[in-house]
Each structure stands twice: as structure tokens, then as C-alpha cells.
């Protein structure tokens, strides 16, 4: 296992220390917990808390700051955080206007966050939640667990965060969040696995000429394997799956996120984006904003996902609003 770490058991703790050391102007840590909150919080607005297993950096701690999250909870690598941790985050960020939990749709995340919500509600804190399930690789109808939440979560943080910043109440922020969830779709692929530090070996292997389509962000196998194809073919395939689930019309406007899973060079992500832009152009779909980079990673996995978010005027304005966080800054 080739990693720049000290001890596998210490990696989340030490990462959090490193984040706080790097960005004291943005975040502080809740002593004794794996929770990052805004350095200047809590603020008098609806607060947003997200989180999940670690290993997806900069998600979610990198998005704590003005215009995005108020708190982020870091679980063990690829393991959803425990309720007591989430509960601490909720207590710390609550500014009396209530707290919205942004949960990626995994059984563990949903259960742990729900238990935390119950704990916070027992304290009289107003808590509500949204569950994002943007991954079209997993078909909603067939599997009762439903789709996974993946990179689209970052756009949800951005837009719900911008809405909260306007002073909107919890119901309104939740409405916007639900609107994002209804209009965002993602799908990914992987070229190589990653190694969970505590496991010490990859959770799957791929032959030199193989790729995995519909890969999850925790090393969960995808929908199928096939021989590596060209960037254009892969991008087209992922887009087709997205369009099949969320038909887009000529004249529609979208935001695009080409998200690297960790080890794929920016060069390749831009080659992918070239094709994404070409396909959208050919369909007469407008692109309001494109993000290319590592936003929701899977340790050192090679691969990427494409996310499309269908915009209306309301979502677009919130997407383009300023944000200032360690990993997402926008004027």
C-alpha cells in the first residue's frame, strides 16, 4: 500500500488537523469530534450540515464556508459517521433558524443522520433533511435502496448554501435542495481501484484493458465491466444514461460537473469535458457553468463522473452566487 500517511487508524484524525492548520480562516474543529464548522459560525441563518465517510476530499469539509456548508462530519474512510458526531455538528451550527442535513443516499448515512436528527430534535433544535440520489447507474425502480448520492452533492451544497445565505427559512432552503435533487443526475466510471488505508489492499481489481462503468465512490462495483474505450465514447455513454433518466430539450440550460475520482489527471478531465460540451451543443442545450476537477473523490481511484444539473432561473442565480470555502471559491 503506497500512501503518504503515518498510521492507517490515524488518517482521518490527522487529515482533519491538517485541514484546520491549512484553513483557519475558513474552518475550525469541534474539539473531540470529527466535525469541521465555519470559523466564524454559527451564523443567524439556516445552517447546512453534510458529511459521510472520509476519502472523498474535498467533500465535505472543503465546502464549509460562506455560501455553502456550515458543518461537515467526517466518518472513517468510506464509512458513514456515527450519530453522535452528526449530533455535535448540528448543535454547533444551529443559529436558531434550524439545520438542514444533506445526506447522500446510502443506508448507513441515512440511518446515522436520522438518529442524529432524532437526538437534536429531542433538544428542541429544528432539523430537517434531504437525501440526494443522483447516480443514474443504479436504477431506482429495481432496487429498493434506491440510487446512490455522488458528485451531484457538491452542486447541492452550492445551491442550498447560497439559498440559506439569503436568509430563507428552513422550509425554503429544503424546497430548493429538493429541486436540485430532482434535477441533478450523475454517472461515473473507474479505470483503477483505490485502497482504504485500514484495509491495505484494493477492494477490487481491473485488468489492464478493463474499465468499470457505473462505479460508486466507495469502491462498490458498478453496473458492468468492459474494455476501455476512447474518452469520447465513454463520455457519450455516460451522457446517454443521464439523458435516458432526465430528458433534456433544446433550449434547456444546465450546469456541468466533470468530476475526477482522485488519480485522473485534469488533462483527461478536460478531454472529457470537450466531448460533453460538444454533445450538449449538438443538442442545443445551453451550459451556464462548467466545473472540472476533483470535487467528490474516491481516494486515489482513477476515473471520473459526469453530472448534469438542469437549471431554471432560480437555481441558476443561486449556482452563480458567490461562495468562499477552502475548495470552492467563486466571485
Amino acid at each position, binding site marked *: 500500500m503506497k500512501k503518504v500517511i503515518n498510521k492507517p487508524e490515524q488518517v482521518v484524525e490527522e487529515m482533519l488537523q491538517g485541514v484546520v492548520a491549512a484553513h483557519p480562516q475558513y474552518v475550525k474543529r469541534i474539539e473531540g469530534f470529527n466535525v469541521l464548522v465555519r470559523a466564524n459560525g454559527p451564523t443567524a441563518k439556516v445552517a447546512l450540515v453534510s458529511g459521510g*465517510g472520509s476519502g472523498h476530499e474535498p467533500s465535505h469539509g472543503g465546502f464549509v464556508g460562506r455560501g455553502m456548508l456550515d458543518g461537515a462530519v467526517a*466518518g*472513517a*474512510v*468510506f*464509512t*458513514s*459517521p*456515527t*450519530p*453522535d*458526531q452528526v449530533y455535535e455538528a448540528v448543535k454547533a451550527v444551529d443559529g436558531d433558524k434550524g439545520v438542514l442535513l444533506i445526506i447522500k443516499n*446510502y*443506508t*448507513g448515512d441515512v*440511518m*446515522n443522520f436520522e*438518529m442524529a436528527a432524532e437526538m437534536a430534535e429531542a433538544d428542541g433544535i429544528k432539523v430537517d433533511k434531504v437525501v440526494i440520489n443522483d447516480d443514474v*447507474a*443504479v436504477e431506482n425502480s*429495481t*432496487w*429498493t*435502496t434506491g440510487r*446512490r448520492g455522488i458528485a451531484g452533492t457538491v452542486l447541492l451544497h452550492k445551491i442550498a448554501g447560497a439559498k440559506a445565505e439569503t436568509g430563507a427559512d428552513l422550509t425554503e432552503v429544503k424546497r430548493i435542495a429538493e429541486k436540485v435533487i430532482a434535477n441533478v443526475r450523475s454517472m461515473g466510471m473507474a479505470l483503477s481501484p483505490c485502497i*482504504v488505508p*485500514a*484495509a491495505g489492499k484494493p*477492494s*477490487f481489481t481491473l485488468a489492464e484493458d478493463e474499465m468499470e462503468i457505473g462505479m*460508486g465512490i*466507495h*469502491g*462498490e*462495483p458498478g*453496473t458492468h465491466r468492459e474494455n476501455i474505450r476512447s474518452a469520447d465514447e465513454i463520455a457519450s455513454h455516460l451522457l446517454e444514461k443521464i439523458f435516458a433518466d432526465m430528458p433534456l430539450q433544446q433550449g434547456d440550460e444546465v450546469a456541468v460537473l466533470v468530476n475526477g475520482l482522485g488519480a485522473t489527471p485534469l488533462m483527461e478531465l478536460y478531454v472529457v469535458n470537450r466531448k460533453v460540451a460538444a454533445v450538449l451543443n449538438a443538442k442545443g442545450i445551453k451550459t451556464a457553468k462548467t466545473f472540472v476537477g476533483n470535487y467528490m473523490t474516491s481516494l486515489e481511484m482513477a476515473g471520473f463522473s459526469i453530472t448534469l444539473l438542469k437549471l431554471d432561473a432560480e437555481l441558476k442565480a443561486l449556482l452563480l452566487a458567490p461562495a468562499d470555502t477552502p475548495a470552492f471559491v467563486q466571485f
Partner: protein
Amino acid sequence: MSAYAIAAIQAIGEAIITNKENLTALDAAIGDADHGINMARGFEAVMTKLTGLEPDKDISFVLKTVGMTLISTVGGASGPLYGTAFMRAAAASQGKWSLDAAAAAQMLAAAITGIKERGKAQRGEKTMLDALEPAYEAFVAGMEEQRTLVECLELARDAALQGVEYTKTIIATKGRASYLGERSRGHQDPGATSAYLMLAALADFCRRQEG
């Protein structure tokens, strides 16, 4: 006194920790390769917590400690599920200082109900329930045949093992393995396996105490 209960939990914890890599490997095949790591982290914390426990507590207190510790250290899907299971078993054993088969059956039933409420799964969805529900039924059947607690536990263990085998034949519709669809078939469910391991460790422990 709680020494017996603590020793039983320690036996369970040792079984889980011993099988850490095994459980993780099962999860690697159809999940995210952390079930053993999660459960071992949880039971290591449990063992530490129990070491410091006053010996004048009832079974319920011990189990509640286990449940709360699992909830706050395991994470993932199994943390809330097993945590809830132990919390419910604790609630079903309040004021108890020793167990008979009937009491144990009640606790197991409460635990299973907790898991189902928390996880909204049914038997046949390739989860820990596929080990636990058959185990409960076998336990009750043994009780009806007037078997001893240890015998009932052994019947439960054997049924759980069959349940684990059964998980290989079905596809997952709950938990992370459900994303795999058809491809989940042929693989053994990690959570069902950890449930079996716990029952087996408990049965062995009780048998050793008897003999």
C-alpha cells in the same frame, strides 16, 4: 452480576475481531470493503468500555453500554443496526441478572424488531436478517421442545449458518450490495456472516460455561 454478561460480550467481540479481515473481504466483493473494519473498531471500543464497568450492573446495563458504544463507533449501516439491536435487547432485559431461554428469546425478538424498524428491510433481502430471523425461529422451536438455553443457542447458530449460506443464492435489495443487482448473487452477505459469528461465539461461550 454483570461479569457473565461481560464475558459473553467479550467472547462475541473476540470472534468479530478475529474475523475482521474475513468480513472485510466479504464486503469487498459486494460492498465497500469495510464491514470487518467497522465491526472490529466497534467491538474494540466495546471491550475497552466493558473493562471499566462496575460489576454491580444488570444484563440490560451491559447491553445498553454495548449498543451505545457500537452506535458511536461503528458507523456505516451496521453501526446503527447492531447498535439498535443491542439497545432493544437491553430494553428487553431490564433488571435481569441471569437469563433463561424465554428471556433470551424475548431479547432476540426485540433486537430483530429494532433492526427491521431501523433498516426497513425484510428477510430475503440479503442482510443480517437472513441469519437472525431463522436463528430466532430455530431458537423458539428448540424452546418449544424444552431444550436448554445452550441447546437453543446452538440451534439458532446452526440456523444462522444456513441463513448465511442462503444469502449466497439471492440478490441484494437492501444495503450497498443492492447496487450490484444480479451481480450480488453468489456472494455471501457480510452482515449475515457477522450476525452468525456473534451467535456462534455466544453459543460456544455458554456451552463452555456449562461444561
